[in-house]
């Protein structure tokens, strides 16, 4: 039988979760969500004909990660300065050099957490995208930052409206 192979184009923005690294790709008639754990990929498809709604939910994960990275980084920096100070104040002893080993290790860890904290903050606000289909709501694994999600949302709105035609009424759904 004939097997059509789709040409996929990558959409902007990825996302990490316990399921792996997420990424959205688009084909002619559907959106493909790829969740990768490096050695394997799992797929979910959302056909443009079937997409009923697309929602971006703003989350506060950025603040939570900033607190975690900042907190752990600060603790590491405090330990590093304490051991460094202890080393300086015992400089007459032979063993004081050994105190600089934890200074170097915790100093390096503090630097790593500082970099992670800065990267997290620079990526912008966090969010979660949801797609409504005939089978209900599906939370997407990507994009997870508002800036990238805005691009994805604009692209999905234009493709889905082109596939389905304009909604019968403007504004919120009637209840």
């Amino acid at each position, binding site marked *: 039988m004939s097997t059509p192979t789709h040409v996929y184009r990558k959409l902007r923005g990825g996302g990490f979760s316990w399921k792996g690294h997420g990424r959205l790709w688009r084909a002619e008639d559907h959106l493909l969500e790829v969740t990768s754990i*490096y050695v394997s*990929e799992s797929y979910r*498809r959302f056909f443009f004909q079937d997409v009923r709604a*697309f929602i971006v*939910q703003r989350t506060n994960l950025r603040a939570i990660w900033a607190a975690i990275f900042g907190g752990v980084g600060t603790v590491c920096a405090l330990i590093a300065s304490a051991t460094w100070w202890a080393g300086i104040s015992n400089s007459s002893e032979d063993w004081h050099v050994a105190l600089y080993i934890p200074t170097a290790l915790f100093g390096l860890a503090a630097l790593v957490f500082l970099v992670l904290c800065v990267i997290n903050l620079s990526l912008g606000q966090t969010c979660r995208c949801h797609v409504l289909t005939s089978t209900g709501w599906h939370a997407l694994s990507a994009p997870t930052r508002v800036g990238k999600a805005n691009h994805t949302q604009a692209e999905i709105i234009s493709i889905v409206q082109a596939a389905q035609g304009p909604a019968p009424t403007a504004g919120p*759904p009637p209840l």
Partner: protein
Amino acid sequence: MVPWTCPVCRAALGPYGLDAVQEAHCPSCRASLRGQVFAAWWTPEKIESKLDRALEGEAVCFFHPSNRAALACDACGRFICTICDLPVGARHLCPVCLSKGLGKEKLPEIIPRRFLWARTGLAFGILPIICLVWPMWVISGGTAVILAIISWWRPVSLVRGRQRWAAILAIVLGILQIAGWFGFILLISYSKNNSGK
């Protein structure tokens, strides 16, 4: 019409202004939401329960000769009725073609997962070298080579295609590991012989 619910807490939402740009809050879980509702939300489900009996001279379903053909299978072209119509993504298949496709993973629209052989081989090629676990190299190197060779014929990532470079790199690193392992063994036996003298 399907009820309109919050994607986060699934509570029924009141008529509040869902907008693509302006955020609104779910009255139940306070989630900040914005978005777009599409035409498909208003169109009721297509429930085609009525079966059309074929009239004299009309095209009939291949599987149900008394039913009128509704459409043709997109894979084999056989006429099928509304019972036999199995939509797979944007295509319509007959039951025979769908089961053929399910059996050998031929339909790209229904593949749920792919194991990436070449990438796994590459992991077996790189990680043991980085971790310097040389006693394992003969096993991990052999695994990398075998996985890379298998990957040559196995299905690949739907989006990235066949990554031959990963398989070739895995074979090279695998052979390096095996060679390195024999090198260490020779070195050890040589130094033992020398110290025994």
